[in-house]
């Protein structure tokens, strides 16, 4: 009995394997060949990326991978420019701010439909904001952080949102908020169908309904998200594609392989060292995402000897940033001298960067009474980020630079979550980190990263300066653009003198795609609207 069964099983297994091998040899070619795969003539774009989305309800999440998809399912009241963060009309065709900056009247597009067939109107906008304001930090994290809180919270900026007509909405603010419009253009504040939200309840994140160019079809977790053309999209002639599939391929090299074999049409997160391969391939093209980030070396100013500005300035002089950018960013980054990248309005170009000069560094160290140098720990990022492609190697370069001026830095690294926690607790002497902007506003860099209000959260350096704080707070409610930029210029001077950071680089994240991908424009925020993208 036993042996017979065993034999039968072996036979079965053999059969299965031969079927598998047969499968390999029968070459039906549908796998390769870019966009026209399959028998249909549908234009399907396959977008390969590093990770899956967390939820497709944009207001409920903070991760970039989620926004990459929701940006195409939902629209916002106002939009960012094609490749910048200037404000343009979106679901709102025009808007008028009051002189005191306290009310904004929006005229809405008419004839816009949600994917479920319901009408988009003023009432829908009101309902969305009511939903968010009634939430909390856990449900809608971005709402609170961009609009100062929820409901009756003291800091909550939005006093009321009222429909003053079918297609007119008035926002009343408690105090002027300069980046108000830029906030509204952010992906999380996309307008969802109130009917669908009500029906889906907690599962709205799995069944998103917006007014965007594509409607949601299917989500296979950790694998693919499929969206398809919304025929009633309100923008004439868009979208061009019939379908977009977002595919998660975590390994960078494997993603590039998938692009090379034609299984995907676009690949996100191309490592700078692979750029050459792509440029040398006639079937591929390289896309550069305009830089809206900063990679930096932070020094915890509460720890000795970094409590002395002279030491921090010395470190600034000691590091050869150009060499770092050339070596580890493959030149695809700009050397940074301010905490904000130059694309952001308010950038202070007259700040004179600390030149690379080991002699000056030594002088400053001597002035600080540390002529013999000192020992320190240097935290190296364990994960690649657009603003820091290889933390370990950058740390080694910095270690060498510091050794030249007598500072003995020991490189340490932790797993990412631990790394952030230890840095936030102020346990690092100096650490590598970076930031990608959310809304293209200077406030989102300078206040978020260097103000005393954010010590222990995003201000990992524990740097506090009352003068800087006053300037930044003033700028938050300054509605006049020029006056506001003036304040940010001032802020950058202060930060430059106090030198809590060594700003290292503003990198250019890279994407690659097949030659047949047309009209793709990478957006600095990291989420790209694919409405006007086409396949040849």
């Amino acid at each position, binding site marked *: 009995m*036993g*042996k017979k*069964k*065993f*034999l039968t099983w072996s036979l079965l*297994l*053999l059969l*299965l*394997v031969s079927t*598998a091998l047969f*499968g*390999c*040899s*029968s070459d*039906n070619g*549908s*796998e390769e060949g870019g966009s026209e795969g*399959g028998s249909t003539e549908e234009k399907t774009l*396959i977008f390969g990326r590093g*990770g899956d989305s*967390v*939820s497709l309800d944009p207001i409920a999440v*903070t991760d970039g991978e989620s926004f990459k998809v929701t940006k195409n399912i939902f629209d916002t009241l106002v939009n960012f420019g094609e490749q910048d963060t200037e404000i343009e009309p979106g679901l709102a065709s025009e808007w008028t701010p009051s002189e005191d900056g306290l009310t904004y009247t929006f005229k809405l597009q008419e004839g816009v439909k949600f994917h479920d067939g319901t009408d988009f109107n003023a009432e829908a906008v009101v309902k969305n904001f009511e939903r968010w304001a009634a939430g*909390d*930090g*856990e449900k809608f*994290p971005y709402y*609170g*952080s961009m609009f100062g809180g929820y409901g009756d919270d003291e800091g909550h900026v939005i006093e009321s949102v009222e429909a003053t007509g079918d297609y007119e909405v008035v926002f009343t603010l408690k105090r002027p908020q300069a980046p108000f419009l830029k906030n509204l253009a952010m992906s999380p504040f996309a307008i969802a169908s109130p009917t669908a939200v009500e029906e889906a309840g*907690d599962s709205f*994140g799995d069944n998103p309904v917006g007014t965007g160019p594509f409607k949601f079809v299917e989500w*296979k*977790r*950790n*694998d*693919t998200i*499929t969206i398809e053309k919304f025929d009633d999209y309100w923008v004439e002639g868009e979208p061009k594609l019939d379908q977009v599939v977002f*595919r*998660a*391929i*975590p*390994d960078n*090299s*494997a993603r590039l*392989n*998938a692009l*090379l*074999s034609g*299984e995907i049409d676009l690949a996100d997160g191309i490592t700078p060292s692979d750029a050459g391969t792509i440029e040398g391939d006639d079937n591929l093209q390289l896309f550069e995402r305009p830089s809206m980030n900063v990679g930096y070396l932070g020094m915890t100013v509460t720890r000795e000897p970094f409590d002395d500005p002279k030491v921090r300035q010395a470190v600034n002089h000691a590091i050869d940033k150009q060499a770092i950018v050339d070596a580890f960013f493959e030149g695809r980054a700009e050397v940074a001298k301010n905490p904000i990248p130059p694309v952001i309005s308010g950038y202070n170009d007259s700040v004179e960067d600390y030149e690379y000069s080991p002699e000056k560094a030594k002088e400053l160290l001597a002035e600080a009474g540390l002529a013999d140098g000192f020992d320190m720990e240097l935290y190296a990022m364990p994960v690649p980020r657009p603003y820091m492609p290889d933390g370990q190697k950058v740390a080694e370069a910095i270690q060498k630079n510091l050794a030249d001026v007598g500072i003995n830095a020991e490189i340490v690294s932790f*797993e*990412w*979550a*631990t790394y*952030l*926690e230890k840095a*936030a607790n102020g346990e690092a002497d100096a650490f590598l980190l970076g*930031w990608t902007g959310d809304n293209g506003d200077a406030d989102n860099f300078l206040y978020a990263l260097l103000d005393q209000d954010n010590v*222990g*959260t*995003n201000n990992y350096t524990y740097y506090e300066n009352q003068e800087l704080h006053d300037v930044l707070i003033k700028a938050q409610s300054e509605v006049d653009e020029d006056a506001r930029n003036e304040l940010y210029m001032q802020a950058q001077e202060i930060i430059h003198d106090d030198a809590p950071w060594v700003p290292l680089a503003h990198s250019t994240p890279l994407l690659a795609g097949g030659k047949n991908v047309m009209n793709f424009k990478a957006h600095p925020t990291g989420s790209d609207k694919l409405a006007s993208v086409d396949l040849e």
Partner: protein
Amino acid sequence: MLHYIGRRLLQLIPVLLGMTFIVFMIIRAIPGDPAQVILGQQASEEAIKALRTNLGLDNPWYIQYFDYLKGLVTGDLGESLRTRTPVVDEVWPYLAATIELSLFAIIIAVVIGINAGIISAWFQNSWFDYLAMIIALIGVSMPIFWLGLMNQWIFSIELGILPTTGRENVRDPVDVITGFYVLDTLMAGDFNQLSTVLKHLVLPGTALATIPMAIIARMTRSSMLEVMRSDFVRTARSKGLSMFWVVYKHALKNAIIPVLTIIGLQMGLLLGGAILTETIFGWPGIGRYIYEAIGFRDYPVIQSGILIVAFIFVMINLIVDLLYGLVDPRIKYD
């Protein structure tokens, strides 16, 4: 026999309980606050505090642990901190993907490994024997990620016969019924898709199979060599029986027991190798599910994921133990 199975299943309880406790303690010992990770760098301190309270992370560890156990008893594996979905509801597709891949891999490993081992033993010290054992040695020492990327390069980019990543042709997706795509396409009667799905299995499957295949081949070879020196095989050979008959009818069943043990152990280890394989081949399986959960300090997912894997591991061992009796009736259970 039933008595034996019952006892083995009862033994499972303390094993799995110990497992939950160890995993629970270890993941809480590593620093990194889930609330912070979930809310991201942008979050305010109040938001983090509120979330911690809401997730029950403020409670002392033993209360959290007992809450977790209480849930387990009722079949509740907890809710993913990141996606806010009950783990029970979201784990199946990942699990199915991994099981399908592992089964495919173990079939390749067993069929090729055992046969290579047999042939090597039969033609001991022949060129085939040396070649097979050299390949086996390389197979054991080959890093999966390197092998995986090389295979992608050769078979997908250069030869264009196999897909690099994923489970299906996303331009023509499979309609999911059970989560096992081979089964789903068979049920739908779509042989075109079945072939596509099998093609997708080949590269990750062979990458995952390499190490167990090599180990099984070596084990079969040495075990067969021993058996073939015994009297009954010599008798069978002297009677003039064909090689096939001697090996598969007489020798193999006596040589198979240690090989079975190795197969059982290797199947358990496959689940470990799956994390790397799944990452390189973009395979949406449970290895990656757990791995990503670790990055997010998603405690319920890590706990449940490891628990499920441990459960499967123990079950495989049980099945292997039962197979001993099937293959060799002299082995009795009591």
